[in-house]
């Protein structure tokens, strides 16, 4: 019955579409819809006369033409102007190139080479008349991280060496359908990895697991069922099912891997609201809410662009499995670019009973400005100034924040990250700001940050630094450092975290 209704609806649309087309054809003039009258006196440049009579067509000299267009492109790679270095003289931006015989780091692939050359081979197709063809390709990629850290927090020292491994397996069927599985065999979920602790209590902290952290399928209905649908049917609805990461509002509302199903539609337009992305989701497991009970989450999320301003609206209801008090969450964010500045304002609201810590709010203001200065000390180019301001009430909790790297967030001076990861906010507000600098074509990055936070009127100050450096085509290393000072000794923190990464 549902299928026949669906077909009937599609058939009606098809009929209307054909009728409209027939109406268009019936009209004598080209069927256009003029919203306002066209301008009068419009004339397009006349075509030049036929090039058979020399002298009638103005032709600049060959040398003038070549000089104006940057020379020839036939004889040297990228043409005369680039190969001679002339083009580089006209700008302070560097010319970034790899050699023609560069061999890029490749993932492990079954099927055609990943983003490689050769003919596209099609095997199989979705059902239906002229169902869309498949180009299956399996890709395995990932990263391995070695890390070491030392931290003194609340009078307690911790020194450790550890590692983390991320393994991703991706099976692509088409440009819109694929399966994906991710394993973190030595560091489950947000643990950050397994490590050996040298300080007391010493020993190996094992976070290994054979369970995949993510496994999901994503596909578009218009692609899967295109063999049955009219090309005019708006069936660009994406279905996602499995355990997949879900993060919204800059990771502040949810940042977790959740088991569920989601329907999305993108590129919707209402008036001059554009790029509307609507998502409806139901997560029935693995919701790492900060409550002792297990629960489900159901909700709606929308992203909207309006004249370059980006909006996010979310409503989520967390429903405990035991039928107890649920929690309502609503959030709104707006990001606006003003000149060289970007401003984002976020309001996250929680409505819950006292058993769920009561009502809570989190308000955040984020700002940054791109900044170029002519003086580069030792080649460092200050590039980005940023600042965050936030206020959280005691009742505020994020819905689920398990996807933060627990180890690295300890070295994050910005308190917002810890709040999003599930830290009990109390009544607190804070401000942080800093600068990110780059060096050597952004292969090196240095971020310096200062933060001040007040919890129940008690201030804490923090300094943080992050240094990243690319080493080879597939390796890089990172150093995090933090120093927190507060009258509350439990909040004092001093430490460093160093990592080395290899990607494939």
């Amino acid at each position: 019955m549902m299928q026949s209704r669906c077909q009937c609806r599609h058939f009606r649309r098809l009929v209307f579409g054909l009728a409209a087309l027939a109406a268009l054809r019936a009209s004598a003039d080209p069927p256009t819809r003029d919203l306002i009258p066209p301008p009068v006196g419009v004339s397009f440049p006349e075509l030049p006369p036929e090039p058979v009579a020399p002298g009638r067509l103005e032709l600049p000299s060959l040398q003038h033409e070549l000089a104006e267009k940057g020379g020839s492109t036939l004889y040297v790679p990228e043409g005369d102007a680039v190969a001679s270095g002339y083009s580089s003289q006209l700008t302070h931006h560097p010319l970034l190139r790899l050699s023609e015989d560069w061999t890029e780091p490749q993932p492990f692939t079954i099927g055609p080479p990943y983003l490689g050359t050769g003919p596209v081979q099609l095997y199989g197709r979705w059902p239906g008349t002229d169902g869309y063809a498949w180009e299956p390709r399996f890709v395995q990629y990932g990263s391995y991280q070695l890390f070491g850290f030392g931290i003194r927090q609340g009078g307690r020292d911790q020194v450790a060496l550890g590692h983390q491994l991320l393994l991703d397996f991706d099976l692509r069927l088409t440009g819109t359908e694929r399966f994906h599985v991710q394993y973190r065999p030595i560091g489950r979920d947000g643990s950050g990895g397994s490590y050996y602790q040298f300080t007391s209590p010493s020993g190996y902290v094992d976070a290994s697991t054979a369970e995949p952290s993510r496994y999901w399928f994503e596909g578009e209905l218009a692609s899967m069922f295109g063999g049955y649908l009219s090309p005019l049917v708006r069936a660009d609805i994406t279905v996602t099912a499995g355990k997949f990461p879900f993060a919204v509002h800059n990771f502040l509302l949810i940042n977790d891997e959740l088991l569920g199903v989601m329907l999305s539609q993108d590129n919707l337009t209402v008036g001059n609201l554009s790029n509307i992305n609507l998502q409806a989701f139901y997560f029935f497991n693995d919701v790492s809410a900060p409550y002792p009970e297990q629960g489900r989450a159901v909700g709606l999320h929308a992203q909207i662009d309006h004249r370059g301003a980006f909006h996010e609206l979310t409503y989520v209801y967390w429903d405990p499995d035991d039928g107890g008090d649920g929690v309502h969450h609503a959030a709104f964010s707006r990001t606006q670019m003003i000149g060289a500045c970007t401003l984002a304002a976020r309001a996250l609201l929680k409505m819950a009973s006292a058993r769920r810590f009561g009502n809570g709010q989190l308000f955040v203001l984020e700002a940054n400005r791109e900044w170029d200065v002519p003086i580069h000390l030792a080649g460092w180019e200050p590039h980005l100034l940023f600042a965050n301001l936030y206020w959280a009430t005691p009742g505020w909790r994020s819905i689920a924040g398990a996807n933060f790297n627990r180890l690295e967030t300890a070295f994050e001076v910005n308190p917002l990250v810890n709040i999003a990861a599930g830290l009990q906010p109390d009544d607190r507000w804070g401000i942080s700001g800093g600068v990110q600098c780059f060096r050597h074509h952004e292969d090196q990055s240095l971020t310096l940050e200062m933060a001040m936070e007040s919890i129940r009127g008690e201030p804490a100050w923090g300094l943080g630094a992050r240094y990243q450096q690319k080493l080879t085509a597939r390796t890089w290393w990172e150093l995090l450092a933090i120093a927190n000072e507060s009258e509350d000794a439990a909040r004092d923190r001093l430490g460093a975290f160093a990592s080395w990464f290899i990607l494939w």
Partner: protein
Amino acid sequence: MRKQRRVFTCCPRIACVVLLLAGSTLPAQSPMTHPRPDYAPDWPEVSWIIATKCTGCHRPQSEQTDLTSYAAMMAAGHAEDDPLIIPGDAENSPLWQKVAWNVDARVGSELPDEPEMPPKRHEWLTRGQLERLRRWIDAGAKQFALPGTCQPRPLSELDFPSAKQCGACHPRQYEQWSRSMHAYAQHSPVFEAFNLTLIERTGGTLGTFCSRCHTPIGTTLGENGSMRNVHRTRISREGVTCVVCHRRGDGVYRASGRIHVEPGGIVSGCIYGPFDDSPSQPTGAHPSIGRPYLQQPQFCAECHDVVSPSGVRLEEAFAEWLHSPSARRGVTCQHCHMGPVQGKPIPEDHWPVGPAAEVPGIPIEKMPQRPLSDHTFAGPDYSMLPDTEFPWKLDWMYEVDYRDESRLTPYQRRSLLELRRANRRQLAIATAKRYELLGNAARIQVTHAPVARAGRLPVTVTVTSIFGGHHFPTGFSAERQAWIAIDVRDAGGRVVYRSGDLDPNGDLRDAHSDAVRAHQVPADLHLFSLQNKFVTLTQKGTEGSVVLPVNRFVAPISFVRPAPLPSMSFGRPPGLRIAKASLPAEQSMHRTFHINVPCDSDSLTIDVRLLFRHLPPNLLDRVGVAHLKPQLEIVTIDQYRAVVPVVSRPSKRLSRNSMPQATPPRPESGVAGLVTGSKNP
């Protein structure tokens, strides 16, 4: 006798030596060994020459000698005891005699000044081509063939017909395509630079993601993304050539360019087109079959809806169309971009009618009448190459440096001049169609008080999209710039208010302006721009707009890998999105500019223009083709001009509701319409 005995006794030794020597030269009789095939290194080039210059006329079932295959060429003329090709003897081969000519303009040469074939002057064989042909015939006129064990047989340039071959029978479509951005797709120096820059920024892992759309054949043949254009094959440089569309038998929907083009010679493979009643058989031309999918927007979406592997929606033209008024009306991409008026949705039965093919030797009356599409595919881009290199080139330009005219033969000079004229004509047609398209994009409406009083004068500018297919602008939307430039001057010509003007580099004064970021010029806070922007998430959770879609804020290495999260569902990956400011189809946006009215002026001249530019200068700076910035053209799509008298004595403030409409512009204040703006300074 003794001699005989000596010979006889020596014979066994000699025989052994002879046998050993013979055995060493005989092929090893192993089941894994096959006889070495004939290797004719000149055959691929000779085959290309003949295919592109001869087979339009010289095809089976025609009055001309069939040259469409090696077998046909070698069999030609034998029945009359006058073979076309005499292996080993080029001098006496009729094929050679017909094409040879005094290519070096040598005085006293016995060769004719003009060859008998090919008939078109610009197709005469070059010196290099003549040498190849002669060498090939003298070496035995063999066909290059790989051994049978070479499976699957690697594809070569010969497996895909050149557009020139198609042009022999489809001159109209070939001419239109030649000036199109499909033909320019791989030629574009901006694309080449952009692609190479992104390959560097991603450590090479971008691979062929970009070049797979811009040169599907080249990528199929094994040319990676880093290969420079000068090293690419000819068929590769044809970009989106004829067979890229007309040899696609399978639909792949939004595949971001991963399309399957069926290989095969011009007559050995099937051509897909919009018509199901092809008269191919009686004409000796290629077999063809109708495929309705070619007329659906989903066909265009296979390249014009691009999502990177990490989930960044780089192009959304199809997705925008799907939710547009045009889709609701059944108007497709092809109606607007292949119809007789670019940018106007005209159905096929309103298109001009004529023969889709003009087959040499076949009376034109015998060709079926078809609604004729326009293969110019007008868009906002245009060629930035010299007029010697696009749309057409001459074969000899690859052998002789045409830049030094003093070293050219008279033939080369003349053909170069004719080439430049022909190319300029094509570029002018392409420009006219581009203007036509842009002229059908949007209009502005300006409202303000008819009289300005001391204080503030609000000027409201409304931009309205007048087409229903997709946003304005679209395509690689983070590049296209459309904005309102407003300039208000007093009676003395002093600038009272200005927005939408450019910085010293020619950029808009926004976040992408180097001058704004360096505090050299103030940001244009009132800029009314429809340009989309790439926005990346920085380390500290804030977002910043970037010119190149690579996020280096979070990590110093950007690998292109399949996104580990369902990015299609979100429409973007977490670290990078497109901030969309473009105007949806048939919608309006407005902005009010508040002008401070000076007390000491009698009048204000208000000049408002809707401007368009297909690429920003800061992008060209970053990808290494800054020398092309002077070629960036700013097109005025619509404009408004008015002179408003200023009343110095203040009076009662008018309420917003009682604000009268603007008076029509005075006759001398200019014409609303499409005007070419100036090139970038």
